[in-house]
C-alpha cells in the first residue's frame, strides 16, 4: 500500500475526505486534465480515474454515456494512465486510483498494467467486477501488492458478515463501502443503512472507509459523512455536471465551484 493514503486520511484539516470520480479523458484529454487539476485545487483528497469500457456493468446511464463518448474517440486504458501521470506531475499529494473493469486490465495485460500504474505513481486501482473469487483478481492483487499499490475492495449492503470477514483480509488502502446494491447513479443513499455498513466494516479493519454511490448533492454528502465514514465518493453527480455543460467555457471553473460546495458542506460537520 502506498503511503499516500495514510497521509491523506491522517490529515485532519478535513474531517471527511472527498473522493471524486471522473471519467478519464472526458470530455477530452485536455479538458479532463484541466478539470481534475481544478478539482485537486478545490480540495479533493483522492481522484478516481475511470477508464472507459463498453459494458460498464456497474454504471448507470450517466457514467455509461461518458464512457461511450470516450470509446467513440478511441480513448483507452493507456490514455488514462498517461492522464494519471500528468495529474501526478501536477500534484504529489492527491490520491490517484484507476477505476474500471477487468476486461481492459486483463487485456493490457495485468502485469504491464501494474507496472505502468507504479510508474505513473498512482496509488492503486479499483476494479468493479473483480471479486476475490476471480483468479484474475488474485493475479492483479498480488502484482499490485508487490509494487506497494492498493486494490481497493468494495463492500455492498448485501455482503454477508461471513463474506465481509473474508474480504476484509484483502482490504488495502481504504475500503469502498457501497451505499446500495445497484448501478451507479440509480438511487439515493439511506443513512441508517450507511451507518450500519460503516460500523460493520470498522469492526473488521483499521483502514479508512469511504462511502459511495447515491451521493448527489453537497447536503447528501454531509448526511452520509455523518455516518462516521472517513470519506465520501461523489461520481455521477460530477460526471453529470460535466456532461451537461461540456461546451460551457467556464466548465472547469464551475466544476471547481461544484467541488468546493461539496467540501464546504462536508466541513460544516
Amino acid at each position, binding site marked *: 500500500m502506498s503511503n499516500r493514503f495514510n497521509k491523506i486520511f491522517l490529515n485532519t484539516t478535513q474531517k471527511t475526505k472527498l473522493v471524486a470520480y471522473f471519467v478519464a479523458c472526458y470530455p477530452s484529454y485536455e479538458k479532463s486534465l484541466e478539470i481534475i487539476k481544478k478539482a485537486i485545487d478545490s480540495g479533493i483528497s483522492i481522484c478516481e480515474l475511470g477508464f472507459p469500457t463498453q459494458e460498464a456493468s456497474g454504471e448507470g446511464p450517466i457514467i455509461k454515456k461518458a464512457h461511450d463518448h470516450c470509446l467513440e474517440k478511441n480513448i483507452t486504458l493507456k490514455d488514462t494512465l498517461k492522464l494519471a501521470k500528468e495529474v501526478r506531475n501536477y500534484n504529489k499529494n492527491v490520491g490517484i486510483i484507476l477505476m474500471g473493469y477487468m476486461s481492459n486490465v486483463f487485456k493490457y495485460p495485468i502485469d504491464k498494467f501494474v507496472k505502468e500504474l507504479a510508474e505513473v505513481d498512482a496509488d492503486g486501482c479499483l476494479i468493479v467486477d473483480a471479486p476475490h473469487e476471480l483468479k484474475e483478481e488474485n493475479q492483479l492483487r498480488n502484482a499490485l501488492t508487490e509494487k506497494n499499490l492498493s486494490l481497493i475492495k468494495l463492500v455492498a449492503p*448485501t455482503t454477508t458478515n461471513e463474506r465481509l470477514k473474508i474480504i476484509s483480509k484483502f482490504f488495502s488502502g481504504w475500503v469502498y463501502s457501497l451505499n446500495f446494491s*445497484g448501478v451507479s447513479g440509480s438511487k439515493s443513499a439511506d443513512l441508517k443503512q450507511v451507518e450500519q455498513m460503516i460500523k460493520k466494516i470498522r469492526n473488521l479493519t483499521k483502514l479508512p472507509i469511504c462511502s459511495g454511490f447515491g451521493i448527489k448533492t453537497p447536503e447528501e454528502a454531509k448526511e452520509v459523512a455523518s455516518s462516521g465514514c472517513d470519506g465520501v465518493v461523489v461520481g455521477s453527480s460530477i460526471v453529470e455536471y460535466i456532461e451537461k455543460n461540456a461546451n460551457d467555457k467556464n466548465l472547469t471553473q464551475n466544476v471547481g465551484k461544484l467541488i468546493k460546495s461539496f467540501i464546504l458542506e462536508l466541513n460544516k460537520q
Partner: protein
Amino acid sequence: MSKNNIKNSLKTGSDKDGYFGEYGGIAAGENLMHNLEELKNAFEDAIKDKKFLDEFAYHCKHWIGRPSPIYFAENLTKKIGGAKIYFKQEHLNHTGSHKPTNTLFQVLLAKRMGKKKIICESGAGQHWSAAAATAAKFSLPIIGVMGKIDVERINQNILKAKHYGGKLKVVPGSLREAITAAIKEWSNNPDYYYLIGSTCSSAPFVDIVRYAQSIIGKEMREQFMELEGKLPNEIIACAGAGSNFSGSIHEFLDEPEIKKVVVEAEETAALTNGTKGIMQGMVTKFLQSDDGSKSLGGTSLGAGIMYYGISPQLAHLKDIGAIEASVASDKELLETYKLVAQNEGIGISFEPAAAITEALKRAKGKPKDYIICATCCGRVEKDLDVIEKLIGKDFE
C-alpha cells in the same frame, strides 16, 4: 459441482469458484455476489430434492411436451450419400425451441427461492417468449430486456411474450446490451430472479442452464439406444452462448469416441475466432478489441446465435480437445433451410440450420452405419418473413 464416479469426469460442472479450467468464474460487482451465492446454494439444494426434480420432469412432459423425438432425415441422408443424419427435434417443444426447458427449470427454482419477480434478457426473442410463457404459467410477473436491433427484426416472439403478460424493456443495441442491461436491472433489484437464457455470465448460471438443458442428451441416449441400438458417432448443435449445444452433449462428455461439434454463426464465432477475455460477468473467449474495451463481430441471420462470447465451459472443452468448433455463413443457413424444408418437410429456424449445415458437410462420404445427430433447436415461424424476402422466389 455435482459428484460423479468417473475419474477426471468432464461432467462435474464448474469448480468451487465457478471455473471450467481457466474459463468461467464470477466477474461481477460485489453487489451481485450475494445474489449469485444465494442462487448457487438454491440450485445445489434444489437438484438434491427429488420432489423438485419430479416437478420439473412433470412439467417438461405435460407442458413442454418432452421428450422431443429424434428423427431420421432419410431424404437428406440419401441426397448427401453417407452417414445417417438424425435431428433431435427440439423445435417440437412448446414455444418452438429448446429454451423452455431452461426457463421452466429456473422459474421453478425462482419459486422455490421465494422470488416474486423475474427479469431476463433475450436475443432472438426465443428465450423471452419462453420465459414469459413460463412466468405466466407459474403466475410470476416478468420483465424482459431486448436490444432494439433484435426487437425490430423479431416480431412474433415479442407479441407472444406480451400476450403472456411479459413487460418488455427495449435498450439500444442487441443481445450484448440486453444482457448488460438486464444484469444492471438485477443489481438494482436484488430481490428479482434473473432468468438467464443461455450458458453464459457468472457462475452458477452456466451450470444451471446446462443442468436444465442436459435433458436433451439424456433423451438422445435413450432414444438412440431404442431406435438404433447404439449411440450417434457425432453430435452437432449450434451455439449462441451454448445452452443448446451443452445440453445436447453433456450426457456424452465422458465418451470421447462420440464427436461433439459446435457450430457458431460465422460473423460472431467467439469460440473459433475469439480471444480470452473478461466481459459479461465471466472469463471466456470473446470477439473483442485488442484492449478489451469493446466487443466485435458482425450480424448473422441466426439472431439466436449472434453472440460475441461463448459458454466458458465450451471454451475449456475446446481447449482440451473434447469438442470441435465450426461456423456457418448466412448463405449456408438459407441453403440448409431450403434443403430441410423441401426434403424433410420441416421448417427450421436459422439457428439449427447452422448445425444441420455442418451435419450435411460431415455426413458426405461417411459409412452408411455412421450416425450424425444434429439438434434442431428452433422452428421457422420467427424467421419466415426474412426467408421469404431473401429467397422467396427460389421456391416458385
